């Protein structure tokens, strides 16, 4: 993470284009949060932390964008891609504070992304997407509230994003209630989704150097908030381990699960095949 790293450009990448801002699936022309123009670039640990949060938002935006044209109903298609665009806006602001957003999104390799493994998990059925949204949006709401309260470089972004994320959390809550307390089949799938993703939730609260927020201290509050929704939905909070037993490491160390490579391939191939392409 040195200054020289930023100035290294691949073929054609010195020409920034409008289209270059858009991860393939999300159509970013209308991204909710504009990158903070001329925002102070961070350094050292603060920069690494901001980039990790930016990677979380970028990767989840890409995942949610995969629902475009494919959601169970048109209305939900728009809701999920709206959430994706909010996240993409956050990602653009955060990544712009740590370097060139296009280069960071399109030219990094898998191990250079430091997003948590939760956000890269495949969409699965609708219940899996909703479970991932519930776990992550409750976490993100707590995190951004803490960042906004703390002040510092990330506070303006956090203060704006916390309102967006409150809506994401509400959306996930509403669907968790309806799926959990819906039919036998929807209840079964929702419980299965909560159980399946539980092992990726512990990583959210691992300490992150340079962030200035005590993440482990948010874990209990997160658990209470998620448990309240899950119980109202007549579901059960998973009891198993909330970390993968995988010794290789976690997303924050650049270690990712199998499907992440395919996500990156889809997100990056156009830029890599046609550097600087615009439309």
């Amino acid at each position, binding site marked *: 993470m040195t200054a020289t790293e930023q100035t290294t450009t691949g073929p054609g990448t010195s020409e920034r284009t409008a289209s270059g801002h858009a991860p393939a699936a999300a159509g970013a022309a209308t991204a909710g949060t504009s990158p903070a123009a001329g925002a102070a670039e961070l350094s050292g640990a603060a920069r690494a932390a901001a980039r990790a949060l930016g990677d979380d938002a970028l990767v989840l935006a890409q995942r949610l964008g995969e629902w475009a044209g494919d959601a*169970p*109903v048109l*209305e939900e298609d*728009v809701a999920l891609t*709206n959430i994706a665009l909010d996240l993409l806006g956050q990602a653009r602001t955060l990544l712009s504070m740590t370097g060139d957003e296009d280069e960071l999104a399109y030219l990094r390799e898998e191990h250079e992304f430091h997003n948590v493994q939760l956000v890269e998990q495949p969409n699965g059925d*609708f219940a899996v997407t909703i479970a991932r949204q519930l776990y992550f949006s409750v976490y993100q709401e707590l995190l951004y509230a803490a960042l906004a309260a703390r002040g510092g470089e990330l506070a303006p972004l956090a203060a704006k994003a916390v309102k967006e994320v409150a*809506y994401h959390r*509400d959306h996930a809550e509403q669907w968790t209630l*309806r799926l959990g307390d*819906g039919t036998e089949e929807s209840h079964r799938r929702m419980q299965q989704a909560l159980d399946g993703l539980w092992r990726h939730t512990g990583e959210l609260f691992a300490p992150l150097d340079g962030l200035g927020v005590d993440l482990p201290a948010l874990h209990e509050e997160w658990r209470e908030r998620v448990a309240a929704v899950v119980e109202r939905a007549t579901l059960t909070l998973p009891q198993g381990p909330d970390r993968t037993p995988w010794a290789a490491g976690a997303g924050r160390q650049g270690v990712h699960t199998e499907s992440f490579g395919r996500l990156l391939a889809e997100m990056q191939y156009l830029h890599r095949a046609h550097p600087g392409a615009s439309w």
Partner: protein
Amino acid sequence: MTEQAGEPAESATGGQWPLWEVFVRSRRGLSHSHAGSLHAPDAQMALRNARDLYTRRAEGVSIWVVPSAAVTASSPDEKDPFFEPAGDKAYRHPTFYEIPEGVKHL
């Protein structure tokens, strides 16, 4: 799309989510106007879908959703008895007054 038959999401509700009419107030002081309609399983989800479909470009400060089934509409067959008698009663329009100078918003 909600119109397609056989979607798993629809089977639980007998084929189709109900239709809702959406009314959006664009800013304070104006009345809610009809923005369009959408499908949703219940009123709370209809409100959220309306937020995403009709106010995502900051078009509104307030939303109403109303079940389409609750709207009683005039029929095209009744068009003549309903509306035609008003056509030749020009005296019902306030066009026979001089507007005083300086009144801008009459």
